């Protein structure tokens, strides 16, 4: 096992065990923090497929995070308010079932990723960064003024949605669910990176000419990668909304896009466990630095700067060595 793998396994295990210990010691807030870390990591795992594997620097992944969140908010609010979503062609009251909400979140964000991707992938480099940012801003401003679903105030869901066989209101059970989703998606991302698709997408990042010369279409590879990436981040958005029992346009803001990106770079770009390490560290920093100083953003900024300037390859790279794992 490579050092990187080992480190990843340790971090993932710790992320699983800490809440368990907290549960036994009656520290439910630690569980909430761990859940937050797991869900943000999931969002970053999604972005990492576009960013790390495909080289697509998307500064608009908050779009998908927000769509996932609003999928949850909209479906659940209709049930909560006893206002059916639509009555034709059949009566649909909305939903408070997580699996169904997840499905809608994944499909909706994949569809939007497809549309954005079709337009945005015509550009590259800085232009791609900026056009994804622009799409994010469009959704942000739209959600603020869309009064049917709360506008700037957002939507509050009083009771967390259900999952068959679980009591999701119990922090440890909801953590377990989020953690399981994270593990499954990580496994998927691991397989994806080594699959024919992952190989081709990675090559399209490194040498699009080569990919074309062997008869593969780099644009289509990127588009599919972007859609998968958006769908995963959308799923994370739905979970995040359920964690907070609340959605708001903030989920669409460009700072959210920036933060998801920060998780990846903090952890290590294109590394399987980079997003997990990054999100976990970020959540801990937010928690501790926020306690230490009113001006904690300064310290966060300095730390990020230090990572970018001096720890290329992120924290995972710092600990496990610059070289990435090859299979």
């Amino acid at each position, binding site marked *: 096992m490579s050092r990187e793998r080992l480190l990843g396994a340790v971090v993932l295990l710790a992320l699983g065990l800490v809440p368990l210990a907290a549960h036994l010691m009656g520290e439910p807030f630690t569980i909430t923090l761990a859940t937050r870390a797991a869900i943000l990591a999931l969002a970053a795992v999604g972005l990492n497929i576009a*960013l790390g594997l495909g080289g697509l*620097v998307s*500064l608009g992944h908050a779009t998908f995070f927000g769509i996932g969140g609003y999928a949850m908010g909209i479906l659940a609010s209709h049930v909560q308010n006893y206002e059916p979503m639509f009555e034709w062609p059949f009566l649909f009251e909305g939903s408070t079932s997580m699996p169904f909400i997840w499905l809608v979140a994944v499909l909706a964000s994949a569809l939007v990723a497809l549309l954005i991707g079709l*337009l*945005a992938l*015509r*550009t*590259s*480099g*800085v*232009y791609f*960064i*900026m*056009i994804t*940012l*622009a*799409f994010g*801003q*469009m959704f942000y*401003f*739209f959600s*603020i*003024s*869309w*009064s049917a679903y709360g506008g700037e105030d957002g939507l509050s869901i009083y009771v967390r949605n259900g999952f068959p066989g679980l009591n999701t209101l119990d922090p440890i059970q909801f953590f377990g669910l989020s953690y399981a989703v994270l593990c499954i998606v990580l496994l998927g991302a691991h397989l994806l990176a080594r699959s024919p698709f992952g190989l081709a997408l990675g090559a399209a990042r490194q040498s699009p000419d080569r990919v074309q010369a062997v008869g593969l279409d780099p644009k289509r590879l990127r588009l599919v990668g972007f859609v998968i990436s958006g769908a995963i981040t959308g799923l994370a958005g739905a979970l995040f909304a359920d964690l907070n029992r609340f959605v708001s346009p903030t989920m669409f803001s*460009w700072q959210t896009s*920036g933060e998801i*990106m*920060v998780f990846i*770079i903090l952890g290590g*770009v294109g590394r399987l466990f980079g997003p997990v390490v990054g999100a976990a560290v970020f959540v801990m920093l937010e928690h501790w630095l926020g306690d230490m100083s009113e*001006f*904690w*953003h*300064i310290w*966060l*900024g*300095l*730390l*990020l*700067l230090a990572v*970018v*300037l001096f720890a*290329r390859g992120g924290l995972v790279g710092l600990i496990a060595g610059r070289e990435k794992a090859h299979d």
Partner: protein
Amino acid sequence: MTPILIAEQVLNGLQSGVMLFLMAAGLTLIFGVMGLINLAHGSLYMVGAFAAAATAAVTGSFLLALVAALAAAAAAGALVERLVIRRLYDRDHLDQVLATFALILIFSEGTRWIFGSFPLYLDIPEALSGPVTLPGGIQYPLYRLFIIGMGLVVAALLFWLIARTRLGIRIRAGENDREMIAALGVDIARLYTLVFALGAALAGLAGALVGAIQSVQVGMGEPVLILAFVVIVIGGIGSIEGALVGAILVGLTDTLGGIFLPQIFGLFMDPAAATQTGAALASMAIYVLMAAVLVWKPTGLFGAKS
């Protein structure tokens, strides 16, 4: 809607465009010469505004305030370039985005630490306050005309600087080939610091000019930053002409969209719904414009083919 009102709104759009140009010119220059995406450009705008407000509070002079804004932003720019930005030129855009994102956090909270959490006061100088009557009977604030004039003068100076001066020649050479100008014996590190400080000074000037009619507060730079990015992307990154055209296009779209969209929707919707829908779409208008331009011309209106 009278022709006078339309003319006034066009002037407003022009003024907001000229202001955006000051921001965008620095951004696009820095990108063109050094290949750097600087998210912290909005922070330099904020530095300019705060420096101007602080100086005006002490001296009471608007002119000194403008000088202070230029100096403070240029100094902050040069400092940041030496300490941080310099290490980012060889990095990919991703590292640049993150590092300059970190700089925003540091600048914003640092400013709050120094100046406190409440907005500062900066006012229009006596000589420039109040409206004037333009031909056609348009009442228009003198200060806004001053901003338009100031912006156009800076634009002209900038074009002259780049087309005619030694520095401009070096800047243009730097855009094409870093090694070549190094081979010509130009001190490239100094050139870069200079260009970065110049871009920062432009942002600082914009911050000070706008600060007098808006609110000088922490976080004022980010909305403008995003707009400036929209501008340079529409114009084509690295192109000063593109920045000018893009800025005016964005200024006009933003201003006129906000006025006309609700009225257009009012033609076939009830007024309350129309104002809301129109306002919602107007706030998205410039992003739609940007997406449309990029789909049509993937490297912007004046961008070099990649």
